[in-house]
């Protein structure tokens, strides 16, 4: 039997050339390429998970504006393993974004983008862009209320681009508004166009890894000299190189297994993101938010000054993208060790801090009104009748509470008014309520004089309690 298998294998290998195809797996790599080097393979593993789970989901998903939502409800609630598959696709996407980020930070800190691997970096940066585009278009295929409004947000952003903005917006919408053509466009882009491009770029990226070799861990005081680097690298491989498979690949396999297990566990235990209401644009009770990996950008759009917003929206992604692409052109030789490149550490740290801070802000969205704010309780108001009580009711009815906090209740869009009477006088309160200002609407035309009086009476009652020691 064993002999038969061997004969069949030899015949197949001769006709197909399997051994030749797998030969690159055994390319010689620096033996010090250890745990820091697992993120690239992990990204590829996450991509494979995405392809597999995406193909499976496509068996039941109908990319029609009228039916997609129902098919997603079916996949989530009725199809065997459907909920798990959706979760797998979602957490696979998250893992891919995280891994590509880690891979990029590692190659940047190790100076691996320098000669002769400039184009390896460039193709990787483009793959990062395609991955984020896949994430956004994938969220849209969820085709619930948030997805539909996210398309509008994308069209509005594209619309800001001078000259071609209007055309681009219509291209994104598939017409002048959301409709039958919208979803199928994003389906084609998400399922065919972007993955096709990504397959090509991943192939090119891997080819470049083979062509120039896996970069050796940097050594301080040993700068890259384009004239001598290749010779030095060949000598290093001859001296201490190891075949990638199986000598070095086991770390990738262990990390990849851990990654897949994490994705699977999250998909099983937490499950996919909940489907919201159907994508009915006539239902305006919506609060669209991007998935976590773009939440920082959502926050950025709320926090940048209005006057420069359009420029930031259009130019910042272009400039950031070009800068990252140009890194190896501007800095292709010299020191690779992070200890000799403190600015590189600073760039990575600042990027993480900036994106992390914006992400936390995006989670809290303090700039958004709190539409769910309930009327203040008797205990908070401190009165059951009279002007203070009426003012508290008005504070809720006029949506002041949607934007201001009172003892932890309400919104965070405006200042916390819990102790506002300690800061503003009666007259200042009247002026502020009637005229607005500082990002607050003027209520002069919508409030009657007695309503202003009641509202101010309530605000004047918002004082810090006097403690016994203060009285003495």
């Amino acid at each position: 039997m064993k002999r038969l298998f061997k004969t069949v294998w030899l015949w197949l290998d001769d006709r197909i050339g399997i051994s030749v195809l797998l030969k690159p797996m055994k390319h010689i790599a620096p033996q010090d390429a250890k745990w820091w080097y697992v993120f690239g393979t992990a990204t590829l593993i996450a991509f494979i998970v995405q392809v597999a789970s995406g193909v499976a989901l496509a068996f039941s998903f109908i990319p029609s504006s009228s039916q997609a939502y129902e098919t997603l409800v079916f996949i989530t609630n009725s199809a065997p393993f459907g909920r798990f598959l959706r979760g797998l696709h979602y957490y696979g996407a998250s893992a891919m974004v995280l891994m590509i980020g880690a891979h990029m930070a590692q190659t940047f800190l190790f100076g691996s983008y320098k000669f002769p691997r400039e184009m390896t970096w460039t193709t990787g940066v483009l793959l990062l862009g395609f991955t984020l585009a896949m994430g956004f278009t994938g969220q849209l295929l969820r085709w619930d209320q948030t997805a539909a409004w996210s398309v509008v947000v994308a069209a509005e952003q594209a619309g800001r681009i001078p000259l071609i903005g209007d055309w681009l917006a219509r291209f994104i919408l598939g017409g002048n508004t959301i409709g039958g053509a919208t979803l199928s466009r994003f389906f084609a882009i998400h399922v065919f166009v972007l993955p096709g491009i990504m397959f090509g770029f991943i192939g090119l990226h891997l080819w470049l890894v083979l062509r120039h070799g896996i970069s050796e861990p940097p050594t301080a005081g040993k700068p890259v000299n384009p004239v001598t680097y290749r010779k030095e690298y060949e000598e290093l491989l001859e001296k201490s190189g190891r075949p990638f498979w199986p000598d070095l690949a086991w770390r990738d396999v262990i990390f990849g297994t851990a990654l897949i297990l994490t994705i699977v566990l999250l998909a099983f235990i937490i499950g996919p993101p909940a489907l919201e209401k159907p994508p009915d644009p006539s239902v305006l009770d919506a609060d669209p938010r991007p998935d976590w990996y773009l939440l920082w950008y959502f926050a950025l759009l709320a926090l940048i000054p209005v006057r420069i917003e359009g420029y930031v929206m259009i130019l910042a992604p272009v400039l950031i993208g070009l800068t990252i692409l140009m890194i190896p052109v501007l800095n292709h030789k010299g020191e690779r060790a992070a200890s000799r490149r403190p600015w590189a550490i600073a760039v990575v740290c600042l990027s993480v801090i900036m994106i992390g801070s914006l992400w936390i802000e995006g989670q809290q969205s303090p700039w958004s009104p709190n539409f769910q704010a309930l009327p203040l309780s008797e205990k908070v108001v401190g009165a059951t009748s009279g002007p203070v009580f009426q003012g508290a009711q008005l504070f809720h009815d006029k949506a002041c509470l949607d934007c201001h906090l009172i003892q932890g209740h309400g919104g965070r869009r405006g200042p916390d008014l819990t102790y506002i009477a300690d800061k503003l006088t009666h007259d200042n309160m009247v002026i502020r309520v009637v005229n607005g200002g500082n990002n607050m609407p003027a209520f002069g035309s919508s409030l009657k004089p007695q309503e202003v009086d009641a509202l101010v009476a309530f605000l004047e009652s918002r004082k810090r309690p006097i403690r016994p020691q203060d009285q003495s």
Partner: protein
Amino acid sequence: MNENIADHSSLGVDAPAEISRRRFFEKLSIALAGFCAVVVGMPLVGFIIAPFFRKPPEEWVTLGKVNDFQIGKTVNVTVIDPSSLPWAGVTAKSAVWLRRESENSFIAFSANCTHLGCPVRWMEGADLFMCPCHGGVYYNDGQVAAGPPPRPLFRYDVRVENGEVKIKSVVVPIVTTL
């Protein structure tokens, strides 16, 4: 092939003519490949970018009878896109905030915030429109009251005809300024 060239040269055959013939077929092959790409690609690209050139249909859509709306009130009216595709489903619907100013005067606001297109909500008590995304606020006449919106709420053309309130072309208004 190279061997053939070498043979011909050694036999004194006019090699340049042979090479020229090959060059001709080389160029012909490239030209034919390009031609095929154009023949197949043009309609393909045209099909994909067709929405670029689709003009908004200028149709008047009825929102309701004049008497269905109270003076001074702002209400949400659902509109069905008359040019929607058969498989649009619920996405053929859209919403308009309609305000009756006087006996025959109406304002129809787009429900899209001019900041980034999110759906604005009418806060009856506050007499304000508010956007949930980035905190844009508008007065009852659509003017910006607070937040990041760069311009007032978009107004659709409205007319009253045969006792019915109509608006023209429900489209997502695109703010094309930086």
